[in-house]
């Protein structure tokens, strides 16, 4: 085994190694060593950056040569995963330290990290699919971590199943590409020569659907809100920074294969999702719910970026989003932890019970503020830069479209900008409702002002705050293409961007963001009517607000589908028991064949096979009964009748 392979394996296995090692120590504190392993991972990734690509290939089965590779794109993402993961591991120690299942928790978390790393490093579509599924699986395990809670385990199941549907499509795409087009290398995707273009479109579409599933795009986005049932650090890692971006990663890699139509679909779905989720985020009462929908919305942006052809912008947004959203989630985790400690009686995640927490949780507040700003796309944050990149690309793309498609392009663009307006509204709403004003519930225990005693909370939050401001990612404050890693990742020359458009977009997004913040402040400032009544606000299930709050009722659609599914299954079983079994058992097959042979099948189909079978068998039964007559003369009669029948049949 060469050193490259060793390196890759090591890089992949570090997290699980850490978790296993710490599991052997009885003390809970041993889990503090896990972040250190991650730091090794970060360092290794950094060190290897200039030596890529390295890869390892091995024969798996049949004609499939699996491979893993480290190239420029994924080494960056590996580093990202390690960074976020190390912070989450660190944060989790505080968050989970009283939980009896902490061993299980860390193992699962490490398993997830490994799967995610594998997904990034996989250099064969099949292997990518393998890790894709494993990521989903480990996410299932983590969401259902508190399995004793029926609802949480149900959420985990739903999450997995929704993903599974998309994965099935992905599998079709993978098989088509691997087996039909012989495209399997992830790191080096080329348009296959020849082949059926329609089939290629189909394959691309299937990949896109797979990506939509994992990245919680329309119509699959419903699962992400359910996934919030898991421990909050998990949400930070999985549902903000890493797993959900896998779809973006996949499409970014396979963009060369995607047919224009598919690109259009991706863009459309991305924009629509950004909008839909943005609206829904406005109406959430659950602190994580807001973040969940905002994540969906941001993922929509990334998809939009892919769809309009600028996957670089999407990757940039992926990077920045990972930081600020992880920050937001961890901050939310901190809030929830606090609420949980402070008052056992109330729902620790419901914003209706919060308010004025900035005094209790200053670090958290700062994190929320900065990361929220980044999410909103306020200037001086990383989010501003990356979001602007995507919007810019969208505008450029829309301008270039042919007149027939222009309306589509402009509506996609419009949706993108509108979502940019929504984001600051819900972010400010959340910050105002959680950290400002008065506490809307009674704390049973006075925990003092500062409830962030440990380093395992402060360090992650601060690092993420650091990652969310502009200088950590870019040289220029407003330069959407100034990402520090840009040149490393995409060595080619930057495409020229018309200055004027760039300015329009810059100002437009600045304006929209400002308006958004303003609206948010006006509506939800401490003391406003809405906030005063917020504690008691209950959204009626059937109102339009309820519709939005429940994510445009996507769950109900799933429910209907699920009912249909169950109905089908019950029907199948009914058929199995009542029809197949009986027909096959009761020699119905014979009857059917006879009927078919004599060409009267159709007739009996109309009359009902059941009637036919019934009369057939009762007739047969009667004949048999006659044939077994107990009286001797009847027996003689039977024999004679048969003889006469024979006679007249054969002799005439």
């Amino acid at each position, binding site marked *: 085994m060469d050193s490259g392979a060793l390196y890759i394996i090591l890089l992949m296995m570090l997290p699980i190694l850490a978790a296993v090692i710490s599991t052997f120590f009885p003390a809970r504190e041993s889990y503090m060593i896990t972040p250190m392993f991650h730091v090794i991972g970060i360092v290794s990734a950094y060190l290897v950056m200039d030596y890529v690509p390295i890869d390892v290939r091995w024969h798996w089965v049949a004609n499939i040569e699996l491979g893993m590779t480290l190239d420029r794109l994924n080494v960056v993402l590996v580093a990202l995963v390690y960074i976020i993961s190390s912070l989450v591991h660190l944060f989790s120690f505080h968050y989970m330290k009283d939980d009896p299942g902490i061993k299980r928790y860390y193992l699962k978390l490490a398993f997830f990290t490994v799967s995610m790393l594998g997904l990034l490093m996989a250099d064969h579509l099949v292997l990518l699919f393998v890790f894709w599924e494993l990521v989903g699986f480990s996410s299932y395990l983590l969401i259902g971590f508190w399995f004793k809670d029926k609802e949480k385990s149900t959420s985990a199941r739903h999450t997995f199943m929704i993903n599974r549907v998309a994965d099935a499509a992905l599998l079709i795409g993978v098989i088509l590409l691997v087996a039909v087009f012989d495209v399997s290398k992830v790191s080096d995707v080329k348009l296959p020569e020849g082949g059926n273009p329609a089939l290629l479109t189909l394959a691309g579409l299937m990949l896109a659907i797979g990506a939509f599933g994992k990245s919680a795009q329309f119509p699959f986005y419903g699962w992400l809100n359910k996934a919030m049932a898991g421990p909050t650090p998990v949400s930070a890692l999985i549902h903000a920074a890493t797993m959900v971006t896998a779809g973006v990663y996949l499409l970014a890699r396979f963009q060369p294969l995607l047919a224009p139509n598919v690109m259009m679909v991706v863009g459309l779905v991305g924009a629509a999702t950004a909008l839909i989720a943005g609206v829904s985020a406005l109406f959430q009462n659950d602190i994580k719910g807001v973040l969940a929908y905002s994540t969906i919305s941001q993922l929509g942006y990334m998809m939009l970026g892919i769809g309009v052809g600028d996957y670089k912008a999407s990757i940039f947004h992926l990077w920045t989003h990972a930081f600020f959203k992880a920050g937001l989630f961890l901050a939310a985790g901190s809030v929830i932890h606090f609420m949980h400690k402070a008052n056992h009686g109330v729902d620790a995640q419901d914003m209706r019970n919060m308010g004025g927490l900035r005094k209790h949780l200053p670090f958290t507040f700062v994190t929320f503020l900065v990361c929220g700003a980044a999410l909103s796309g306020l200037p001086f944050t990383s989010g501003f830069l990356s979001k602007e990149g995507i919007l810019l690309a969208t505008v450029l793309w829309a301008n270039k479209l042919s007149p027939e498609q222009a309306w589509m392009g402009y509506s996609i663009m419009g949706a993108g900008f509108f979502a940019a307006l929504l984001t600051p509204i819900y972010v400010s709403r959340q910050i105002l409702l959680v950290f400002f004003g008065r506490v809307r519930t009674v704390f049973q225990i006075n925990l003092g002002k500062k409830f962030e005693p440990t380093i395992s909370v402060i360090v992650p939050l601060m690092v993420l705050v650091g990652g969310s401001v502009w200088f950590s990612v870019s040289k220029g404050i407003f330069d959407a293409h100034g990402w520090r890693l840009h040149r490393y990742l995409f060595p080619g020359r930057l495409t020229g961007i018309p200055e004027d458009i760039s300015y329009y977009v810059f100002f437009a997004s600045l304006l929209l963001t400002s308006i958004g913040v303003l609206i948010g402040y006006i509506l939800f400032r401490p003391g406003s009517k809405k906030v005063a009544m917020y504690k008691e606000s209950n959204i009626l299930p059937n109102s339009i607000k309820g519709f939005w709050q429940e994510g445009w009722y996507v769950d109900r659609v799933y429910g209907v589908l699920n009912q249909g599914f169950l109905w089908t299954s019950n029907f199948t079983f009914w058929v199995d028991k009542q029809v197949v079994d009986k027909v096959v058992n009761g020699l119905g097959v014979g009857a059917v064949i006879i009927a078919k042979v004599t060409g009267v099948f159709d007739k009996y189909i109309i009359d009902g096979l059941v009637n036919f079978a019934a009369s057939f068998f009762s007739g047969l039964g009667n004949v048999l009964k006659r044939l077994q007559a107990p009286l001797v*003369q009847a027996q003689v009669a039977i024999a004679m009748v048969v003889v*006469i029948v024979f006679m007249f049949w054969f002799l005439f």
Partner: protein
Amino acid sequence: MNLDVLFFGFAAMVALPLIYMIFTRNIIRSVFAFTISLLGLAAIYVLLNADLMAVVQILIYAGGIVVLLIFGVMLTKRTREAGVFTDHHQVVIGGLVFIGMLVFLVSGILKAGQAEWAGVEFENQIAKVGVLYLTDHLVAFELVAFLLLVALVGAAFLAKKSDH
């Protein structure tokens, strides 16, 4: 010419009692009708130059079997039977079988050919038959002897054993 008349007379003697037998309810009378019919048959055998057969018919059938049957009827007839005919279904089927068979046979006979035999000798049939019994049909002769023994032993054993 005379023989023709005789044949039709004897045929009637055979057939009419049979029709009576179909409809009668009395077993004894029916057995006697049967006897008449047997005698008619014997006469027909005579017409056919089968003297031995006619004799056997009278001796064994009319003399032996009918007596045996009457004996059986007497032995078992202590209670009155409710009816003579079987149930409705059975009678209908019987009638159909009767008609079908008859129609078929009659039409068949009318169309039938007949084997061609070299020549026909009529004289001294009994002597010839006697020789045949001990030459060509020796096996059959011995077999029938054994068969009668079996019938005898069997019937006797059945009757005897059931006494106990």
